[in-house]
């Protein structure tokens, strides 16, 4: 996977490059908006990571320019501008995801992977999701484990659906809060953890390891045993 990082803070740029390298990504760096735009035009990338406050050309204008030229490469804004209005402007201006500094590496990795076009194991349009012996019928709003019907609450269904759509990929707590609960703030309680444990209780078989794996310091992922 090839990623372009447009970031004027050298320390952060290096750090992001090193850690994405470790993660198996090839990373290009650009130190200002104009250089970033030129590189994004010249080469093909899987994901662009763009700061919003950049010298010469700000991140939002950079992305708008790319979108105007019909460049559809997924963009993750990585920025200190964390206000609700900033986030809305970023997503409306052509960004696909928005991460506020300071960030954890796990969060960044998870989001970059989710954005990349690396073919997912499950396609978004599939009406039937399957992970191991767990099947989810998205039209019928029902779930089966080894053919046995599981009774899920609407929120549990939504949570499981999101996990299964990202089979094999880590989804973080904040991704879940944004996409499943639609919360744009950080709850001070363990609501995600509690819901995951309730979900596990419903889908797991006694004596076997859980389908939903906790990735320490990062989030959760669902994977066939």
């Amino acid at each position: 996977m090839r990623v372009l990082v447009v970031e004027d803070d050298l320390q952060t740029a290096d750090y992001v490059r090193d850690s994405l390298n470790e993660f198996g990504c090839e990373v290009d760096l650009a130190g200002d908006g104009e250089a970033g735009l030129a590189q994004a035009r010249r080469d093909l990338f899987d994901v662009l990571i763009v700061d919003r406050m950049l010298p010469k050309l700000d991140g939002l204008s950079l992305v708008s320019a790319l979108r105007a030229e019909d460049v559809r490469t997924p963009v993750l804004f990585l920025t200190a501008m964390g206000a609700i209005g900033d986030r809305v402007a970023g997503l409306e201006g052509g960004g696909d995801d928005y991460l506020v500094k300071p960030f954890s590496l796990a969060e960044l990795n998870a989001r970059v992977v989710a954005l990349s076009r690396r073919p997912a194991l499950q396609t978004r349009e599939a009406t039937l999701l399957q992970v191991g012996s767990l099947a989810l019928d998205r039209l019928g709003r029902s779930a089966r484990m080894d053919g046995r019907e599981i009774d899920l609450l609407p929120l549990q269904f939504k949570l499981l659906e999101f996990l299964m759509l990202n089979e094999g990929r880590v989804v973080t707590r904040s991704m879940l809060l944004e996409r499943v609960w639609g919360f744009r703030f950080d709850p001070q309680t363990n609501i995600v953890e509690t819901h995951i444990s309730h979900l596990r209780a419903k889908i797991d078989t006694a004596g076997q390891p859980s389908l939903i794996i906790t990735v320490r310091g990062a989030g959760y992922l669902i994977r066939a045993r």
Partner: protein
Amino acid sequence: MRASRLLASTGVRLAFLQTLLLITAFWVAGSLTRLSVKLIYRHEVQTRILGEVAALTAMDRDRGVGAVARAVAQDARRPAGLEYRLADADGRGLSGDLPPTGAGQGWTYLDWDDAVVPGRPFQDLIVYTQTLPDRSVLTVGQDLSEESKLRHALGRMLFWCGAVGAGVGLVLSYLLGRGALRRVQSVVVAARAVSGGRMQVRAPTRRALIPDDIDELGASFNTMLDEIATLVSRVRWVSTDIAHDLRTPLTHVRQKLERIKRAAGVDAEVLAAAQQIDRDVDELLRTFDAMLRLAEIENDPHLACQDRIDLAELTGRIVDAYGPDLEDSGRRLEVALQPALFEGDADLVTQAIANLIENALRHTQADAMIQIRVEKVGDKAVVSVTDNGPGIPQDQREAVLQRFHRLEPSRTTPGSGLGLPIVTAIAARHGATLTLSDAGPGLRAALSFPMAGKAG
């Protein structure tokens, strides 16, 4: 435009008052004119009568009563002239048209019916009676019906002038008032739009040769709005700057911590310290985020959108999110949701209600009972979170709405101390109120939103 709306306009009120004053002035002026006309007329009549009496008295002295009688007979025949009666000492008429008056010496007003002298319409008369040197009695008078005709004509004229003036005044003031009202109304509309978040709206201005007070009002209103817009953008700019200047070093701290944790390998002590710093940074960030959030909610006019929201449905979703946490902890949850529509920003209201629920969680024991209710109270959509925990003493309820206030002085429990101030700020953005009251025992926190109208 409704009449009540029109009466609410200062201009129309002034014009109305002016018209009333005009009518009163006309009435006073009319009465005074009528009075002075009467006085001047009487004075003139009396002068004429006295002159005639003096002339006839002289004639009587010089040429005898026969000459007076002839002169009287001659004068009396002139139309619209004076009226006379000459009688001898016994009251027998010698000459003149006037019937016997029965009046004594000097001035007398006579109020006769038509019947007194058939064919001659004597009605109101003023007469002067004097005994001549030869002891015959002369009475000279003037019919006053001319005067009263004059007075009535004058009265009518004044009345119509007044009525037309008042009518024109009223219509003019209505038209002027309506024009002014429309212009003032457009300023009011602009003000509402701006306070509703549309910062770019301005009051309409017109190019007037001589600007009137409403033009000036609109112009200074717009100047004020420009000033506010500049301030607001400066506030946004400053908080963006602060965010950047604080987040960048924190980002670096995080990165270095990450490296330390890796380098530490199996050194448990270093690892533990690094993790502690990590948690401290998180805590710092949480407070910082809450502060920025609060500033944003209070200052950013672009923030709140106006969606039609069912408070019951929205609260239901939050309850679904928090319910398992509440019940797993051993607390009992009671939920009653009655649909209630209002207009607001779903994200912000969600945060406000979530903050109230988190507060209830944080401040109650594990066996507590928490009630979450949505109901219509009057024209308000009310969501309330009630617990049976320790509550907040009456004298502290005001204080907990202040920033960074905590009930326990040690500040050991997690939380930024900004939870309730954020709720208050969100409420303020929605024209809603946050009420804290005693649930005996426990605390009831209620948010009351103005309900959406049926048409809105």
